């Protein structure tokens, strides 16, 4: 099955290994992965700040990247949500583009959603021998309604010792440019999330949205340095866990 891959600019710039893990998991499951070179950013970071018109070029560029795709798999839940829902709204006054946005909307899948719902796989044959807790990002869970899929995949990883995170669905405080515009509020929220993660006793925290994970990682590292948490907690995208064999 041919699958077009949407990396997310954040993964591209800061976390290339996460992108590679995503590609390799899909290949392992028999997908023929295509990574369009033209892709950059879904545009959400602009539209979420109110600059919908400004975001249009990034959106159109993304639409063009995936014009011939049958399936598009996004490594980031919030970008997937933008492509599924927000493009249509922002491009509604440009009929030709609206049609192309609708076309993309119909074939965009978040990473865990694609594996479970389209490929029908819940056990990817991974092994990971450590304790893991999981943060369910808001865009994945609430806006895309992908609630069960990550857990179906996690529970089938051999050796994985799952630790439930208290209020796992509460926002981590990232919120795109919110973390820049309101850094103190954002930090207080992320700190509470990080302390909850530490309280699970897990050595690893995973998720399906790298932006949230980046914020959580930055906070966990800082709290370890200041001595507010007692151990280094590793942050991993769920694709990395699924790619451990």
């Amino acid at each position, binding site marked *: 099955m041919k699958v077009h891959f949407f*990396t997310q*600019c954040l*993964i*591209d*710039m*800061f*976390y*290339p290994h*996460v*992108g*590679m893990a995503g*590609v390799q998991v899909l290949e392992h499951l028999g997908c023929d992965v295509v*990574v369009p*070179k*033209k*892709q*950059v950013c879904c*545009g959400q*970071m*602009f539209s979420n*700040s*109110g*600059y*919908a018109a*400004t*975001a249009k*070029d*990034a959106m*159109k*560029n993304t639409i063009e990247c995936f014009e011939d795709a049958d399936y598009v798999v996004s490594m980031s839940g919030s970008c997937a949500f933008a492509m599924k829902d927000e493009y249509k709204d922002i491009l509604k006054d440009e009929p030709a583009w609206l049609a192309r946005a609708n076309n993309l909307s119909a074939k965009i899948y978040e990473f865990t959603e694609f594996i479970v719902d389209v490929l029908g796989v819940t056990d990817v044959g991974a092994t990971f021998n450590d304790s893991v807790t999981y943060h369910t990002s*808001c*865009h994945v869970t*609430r*806006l895309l309604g992908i609630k069960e899929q990550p857990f179906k995949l996690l529970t089938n990883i051999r050796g994985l010792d799952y630790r439930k995170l208290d209020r796992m*669905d*509460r*926002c981590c*405080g990232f*919120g795109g440019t*919110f*973390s*820049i*515009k*309101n*850094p*103190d*509020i*954002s*930090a*207080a*929220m*992320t*700190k509470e999330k990080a302390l909850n993660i530490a309280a699970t006793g897990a050595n690893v925290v995973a998720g399906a949205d790298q932006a949230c994970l*980046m*914020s959580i990682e*930055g*906070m966990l*590292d*800082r709290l370890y*340095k200041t001595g507010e948490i007692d151990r280094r907690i590793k942050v991993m995208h769920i694709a990395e866990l699924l790619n451990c064999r």
Partner: protein
Amino acid sequence: MSILYDERPFHTRVKDVMDNQFKVKAIQKAQDVFYTKRKALVEQVPAWEEFRTEAAALRDHTLRNLDYYLNMFAENAEKAGAHVFFANSDKEATDYALEVLRQKEAKMIVKSKSLLTEEISLNEELIKAGINVNETDLAEFILQTDDWNPPSHIVVPALHLERSKIREVFHDKLGYEGTENPEEMTRFVRKFIRKRFLTANVGFTGCNFGVAETGSITIVSNEGNGRMSSSIPRTQIAVMGMERLVPDLASLDVMMELLVRSSVGAKISNYFSLITGPAKPGEADGPEDLHIIIVNNGRTNVLGGEFNSMLRCIHCGACMNICPVYRHITGHAYGSIYPGPMGAVLTPLLVGYEKAGALPYASTLCGECWEHCPVKIPIHELLLKHRENIAEHTNVRPAIEKPIFKTAATMFANSFLYDMGTKAAAVGMKAVAKDDAMPEWMKVLPVAGGWIKSKDMGTMKLHKFRDVYAKYEKNKKKGTF
């Protein structure tokens, strides 16, 4: 109190609140209690989602036909003997109220809890006219006693005050000598307020829902002061937002199921009054004279527009009980009697972007408010609409923001420009980085500084995913992978 009670800049208000962690901890504790109680109750209602859908549809239907239902309501209320007055503005509403007080020669009034009376600055106007005003809702009473300490929540306005603080206020202002035991303090207040119920000749109340079919008003309360405000004084003045109607008693039932569960995590409220007109001859309870003031105050500007769904709001407070931002900044950082997610949408609609333009940004758009809202208001979408309006049509944001976004957007829409720009950035970051993280002194920088102050930031990679993948693909083709 007017809609805005604190007009300092948003960041100043936030800092003030965050420096007072007592207040923040009180709110967090309360949120946790609400969360657990509500969750348990909602899980007992298998058709909860259907209820929400029905309630949202009901509210939309009413809003679409608001003129029809308002007329029906007014006609039926008048038939039942009430006086109905449509107030276009806050001033018209308070002027009418003052005129009634003048006719009744009232010098002292009691009030049950009503946000709308805050919105129209009723207390201020009454006090200016020399009227002795008495809040009788326990929380409102506490706030009034504490020199009109502003409310931090629409349902539980004194949520930010801990028991010990309340005792202190009672001690200092009212000579209370008892303990901080809630029952004991409540008993004390009860004695205090009883006297006022018996002497006041006019009682003010809010109205949760007006029922068009019967012309009735409703008061949902947990303390019984609503019922006393409406039954002991000879005259009752009820103030109702023009959108707060339901077509009939059957729809009232749906709304009540949702309101109380969403609001305080209880199945029913302690008191529920359905009042149709004044007391009829021979009836023991109820006022001789009932005035209903229906307030517009800017609502028609919202009706039918892009923010129409906000008028579905039934003021349950569920969105602030769950909001992760409110959790850390409390109601006071919003500076508005309407705080939290609903307030971040509503306040700018009522007072404009110039004064409340920071509020729509006080959200991560996580959508948890929408998920908890009993009438399914897509609050996160409305906040985004506000941001669009602000960015495109106002000068509220710093002038530099637009060009920055424009430049960045051009770069992030073109892989060539993006590649060049990020390569340069990666080289720069690498040069200053310590152990693959940005050093802490960089917190002085604009934009990224706020992040670095409290969180570590990793570096951008010299070899981005696209480079690593290109190599991988090439090797795979060669069969070396």
